């Protein structure tokens, strides 16, 4: 018996499908259906929504809740802050300043603003912020290095090499390794002070500090109440001359109160009273004058 095969389907398109296909291939109809109809549907939908205030509110709420849900996905949550290259006090300060209560969404973090706040700290030169995978806010800090101690009218402060404040210092003896400067406006000219300290290397053990006088010139204060008064301009060169004199004639080890180099062409020495008392008769005698 031959296998019963189903009647083969008529491969020819029906008149209807033939006509529909021809209609579909008509450019105008095609353009209308492919762009006109979707555009119409979208327009009608938009107008339908906009025609009622409640619906607008509903849409707004929906958008807001969707936004909230997305922002609070675990992938976007920042759970902790890591601070690199900072000392304990500075990182405590940073935590205090930023005042972020974790966990928080990364959409709510304004990194620029946080960075500005961190960089306002005196001890921080610059900071780099990034959110790493795993919800970690990494803060890379470049700390200011204290270069000098400044005794101002009110307090003892640490300054970096540009003169920017780093921190307060309780006692001078806490940082004996740093040089001391004093006087009003001394923090404005820290670089010059540092250069002076460098030049003063040979007499460093004797230098107690630099004093800014009248906000315009330096005095080098040595122990035994000696001081070297330097001019407003060319202070470094003047100090070099003083040191040269010192090397030649052991100037500073003598009983001298002040080496006055304010006028480079007329350097002056001020002796202590005792030295003056001893010197005067000798000088008078050499001049042929009786001291009495």
């Amino acid at each position, binding site marked *: *018996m*031959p*296998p019963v095969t189903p009647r083969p389907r*008529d*491969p*020819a*398109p029906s*008149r209807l*499908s*033939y*006509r529909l*296909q*021809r209609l579909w*291939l*008509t*450019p105008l109809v095609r353009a209308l259906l492919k762009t006109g109809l979707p555009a119409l549907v979208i327009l009608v939908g938009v107008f339908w929504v906009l025609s009622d205030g409640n619906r607008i509110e509903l849409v707004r709420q929906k958008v807001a809740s969707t936004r909230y849900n997305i922002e609070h996905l675990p992938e976007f949550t920042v759970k902790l802050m890591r601070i690199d290259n900072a000392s304990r006090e500075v990182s405590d300060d940073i935590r205090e300043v930023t005042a972020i209560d974790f966990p928080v969404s990364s959409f709510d973090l304004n990194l620029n603003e946080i960075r500005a706040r961190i960089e306002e700290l005196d001890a921080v030169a610059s900071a780099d912020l990034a959110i790493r995978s795993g919800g970690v806010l990494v803060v890379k800090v470049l700390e200011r290095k204290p270069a000098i101690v400044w005794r101002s009218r009110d307090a003892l402060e640490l300054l970096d090499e540009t003169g920017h404040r780093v921190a307060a210092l309780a006692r001078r003896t806490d940082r004996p390794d740093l040089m001391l400067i004093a006087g009003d406006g001394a923090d404005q000219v820290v670089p010059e002070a540092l250069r002076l300290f460098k030049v003063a290397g040979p007499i460093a053990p004797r230098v107690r500090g630099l004093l800014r006088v009248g906000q315009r010139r330096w005095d080098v204060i040595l122990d035994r109440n000696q001081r070297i008064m330097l001019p407003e301009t060319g202070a470094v060169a003047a100090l070099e001359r003083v040191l040269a004199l010192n090397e030649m004639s052991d100037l500073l080890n003598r009983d001298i109160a002040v080496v006055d180099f304010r006028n480079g062409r007329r350097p002056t020495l001020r002796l202590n009273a005792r030295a003056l008392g001893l010197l005067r008769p000798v000088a008078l005698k050499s001049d042929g004058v009786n001291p009495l």
Partner: protein
Amino acid sequence: MTALYQRQRAMRHHRQAALQRGVIAVLDVGTENIECFVLRFDGVADAVPGDGVGAMAGQTRFRVVGVHPTRSRGVRFGEIDQMEETERAIRTAVQGAQKMAGVRVDHVIVCFSGGRPRSYGLSGEVEVVDQTVSEHDIARVLAACDEPDYGAGRQVIHALPVNFALDHRSGLNDPRGQIGNRLAVDMHMVTVEATAIENILYCIKRCDLELAGIASSAYLSGMSSLVEDEQELGAACIDFGAGTTGISIFIRKHLIFADTVRLGGGHITGDISKGLQISMTMAEKIKTRFGGLEVTGRDHREMIDIGGETGDWELDRRQVSRSELIGVMRPRVEEILEEVRARLDGAGFEHLPGQRIVLTGAGSQITGLDQLASRILGGRVRLGRPLRVQGLPQSATGPGYSALVGLCLAAAYPQDECWDFEIPANRYGGHSVRRVVNWLRENW
């Protein structure tokens, strides 16, 4: 002849409209297959044939963008036999080709092989009006051809001016602008049965398409498979179809004879089916796979399974040798070729300068047909494939597509037919009222 003029001119207008739109479909209504091509014409005004550019050069003007062959239904001997079935097959072909092309097609040119085409040679002569031959003179001389009595049920499908003669000079292709007194024309006319055309018109209309032209596929096969030299020197093209075998003779690039033999590859399949007691499908299958025309010793040993699906073991395990198959096929092919030979003799083919015979059509792929044809038809026989046209897929380059490719060429570069010229006013005859109206409209 006026009604015919009207219809053919209407088709010409449709064709022009289609060329303006740039898209036209060509359809071959065959006995075995119905094929549809969609052609796209783009920016082709410069391709007007000039010096040395012949009809063949029209192939550069278009591109085939959609192809869909489908199994023909309801067609016998190249004529529509069952309208509904044929209409469905045409719809399938047109829809497939449209889908592939991605454009909607409104105009279609159809070729068919049936309708018993018959050739007539006509001649006419007329005095040139003012020494110089104008287009009007050509129209007049074409109209002056004495129409043969081709019978009531027939219609003219082609009327091609073949040759013009001016005074004593003959062999002119285009006498316009030349000076002379007497203009004579030889015209070749092909008529087919009117019912065949009417049926096709009806089917095309049912498919929501406009008929932009109708042609005989014997002519078109010659256009696409003969090379230019063959068309020039004289050659016959024999198109082996499934239901009919078309014959066309060309000389000086004009069709001078067209005929069909109402026998074809389908009859060979039928013979195999009857002779070996197998189904038509199986017969078609073994004809295309194992068929041949020359028996060699090896063919006696080559056994072919021709089993069926009856469940009867004896019946389902039958085998025939290839030589038996050839023995069934050969007489039928010989019969077809003898018939073709008779037609060629009747047309006076032996008097042509070139005796080239080109075999084309799907049936020409039977192995050994060229040897057999050269033995029966004499002369030099070759197998022809249609010209390559742009965009034609590989599957549609076989000899079975020669008529359709020829139709593409004819659509791109239509041959002048007599209805392309204005009909002289005096041929209007019974339309005197319209003439008065026209006169009034023109003068007021």
